[in-house]
């Protein structure tokens, strides 16, 4: 197996945060959330490559930091194990999160270097291409294989899997699924390139869950923002046409 490292973009909101601090946008000590949001907005304007997922992850992180701070300000409720965010300034909070994260960020970079160095030597054994080999004795691989097959079969049989309502548990769970919006954008692009133009109702015609609906909607908005699609509503309250 040969793997390449994808070095573009950011690995997550904390990576962005480190980048902002390092590029001098923010001083490492005394960061406030409002200052962070201002600098991040400026950064977004300059850096058009930032994806909607990155932005969502960033704001979700900020929201979680604030939530932690709020909880710390309130008297501790019995059974609340949120002792992690102790009373302290925003700056200390952000700094402690960054401090914990930084070594791993550097380690990831180090690993990339090691992988590249290792990737320069090739071993044999490439005679059999394709299927990965499993060491026997890995119980969880075996089980995953089985349940994957069960799931595939259930889907293949047409029985729609039960849609689970997402648990609403404060802010932490609302982080968007990584990639979903981008995946949907690609799908819409493909539809568009095959058909030329589309009606909004066609795009939503195949969407059944609330989550998929939101994702599709976000995808269309994001494509519009990037100028990859034009939205025209020809008749008041009529359908919206998507074209390039």
């Amino acid at each position, binding site marked *: *197996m*040969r*793997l*390449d*490292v*994808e*070095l*573009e*973009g*950011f*690995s*997550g*909101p*904390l*990576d962005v945060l480190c980048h902002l601090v390092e590029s001098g946008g923010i001083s490492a000590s005394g960061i406030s959330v409002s200052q962070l949001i201002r600098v991040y907005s400026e950064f977004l304007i300059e850096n058009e490559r930032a994806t909607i997922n990155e932005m969502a*992850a960033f704001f*979700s*992180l900020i929201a*979680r930091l604030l939530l932690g701070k709020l909880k710390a300000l309130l008297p501790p409720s019995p059974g609340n194990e949120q002792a992690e965010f102790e009373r302290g300034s925003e700056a200390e909070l952000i700094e402690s*999160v960054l401090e*914990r*994260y930084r*070594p*791993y*960020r*550097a*380690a*990831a*970079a*180090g*690993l*990339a*270097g*090691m*992988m*590249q*160095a*290792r*990737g*320069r*030597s*090739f*071993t*044999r*054994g*490439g005679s059999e*291409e*394709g299927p*990965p080999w*499993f*060491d026997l004795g*890995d119980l*969880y*691989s075996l089980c*995953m294989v089985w349940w994957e097959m069960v799931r595939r079969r259930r889907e293949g049989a047409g029985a729609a899997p039960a849609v689970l309502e997402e648990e609403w548990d404060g802010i932490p769970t609302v*982080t968007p*699924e*990584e*990639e979903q919006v981008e995946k949907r954008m690609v799908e819409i692009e493909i539809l568009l390139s095959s058909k030329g133009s589309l009606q909004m109702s066609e795009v939503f015609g195949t969407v059944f869950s609330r989550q998929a609906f939101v994702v599709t909607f976000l995808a269309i908005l994001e494509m519009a923002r990037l100028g990859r699609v034009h939205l025209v509503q020809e008749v008041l309250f009529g359908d919206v046409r998507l074209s390039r």
Partner: protein
Amino acid sequence: MVTSGYRGENPLSPIARAVEAVLFVAVQPVGVKELASVTGSTEEVVAGALEEIKERYRDCHGLRLLNIAGGWSMATSPEQEEVVTLFRDVALSQRVRLSKAALETLAVVAYSQPTTRSEIEEIRGVRSERVLDTLLGHGLIKVAGRRKGSGTPLLYRTTDSFLSLFGLNSISDLPTLEEMQDILPVDEMSDDGGRDI
């Protein structure tokens, strides 16, 4: 053209030649113990033979001996990267890309193993479900039981494939987190990756 001297090369020792042949046919790294049992000699003798091959390859050949994932593997020398990549068989071989997020997650697992998803997410500040799925799918990490206590979350560990991919013999060979701080950040590394670790 080459006149004198050519015939005068020192042959590898008989044990080194046997070890070489075994490593050539092996698909995965082979441990010293196994090499000793197969060649009918002691682990010390095998260790000496490996050293002999290693030096000879380094000095004279387009090959290398690598000490990875608890064993020894024959591989092409890094200097031959270009020509080997050009060669179709290798160019055709499977290539998967690891994102920065995947590397970061791998770093957390590698340094804090065994670790749980929530610990990883705590450090990375972002949901890591999918990245973990992909790493599991590529066999770079594995589930290694559950943590006792509330929720009994799954524990993750790195695998031997992880070691092979990064050219490590064991997890203890990983540079410490402190040492990693001194390694260049990814963005500053050029594409030719002209660095050896």
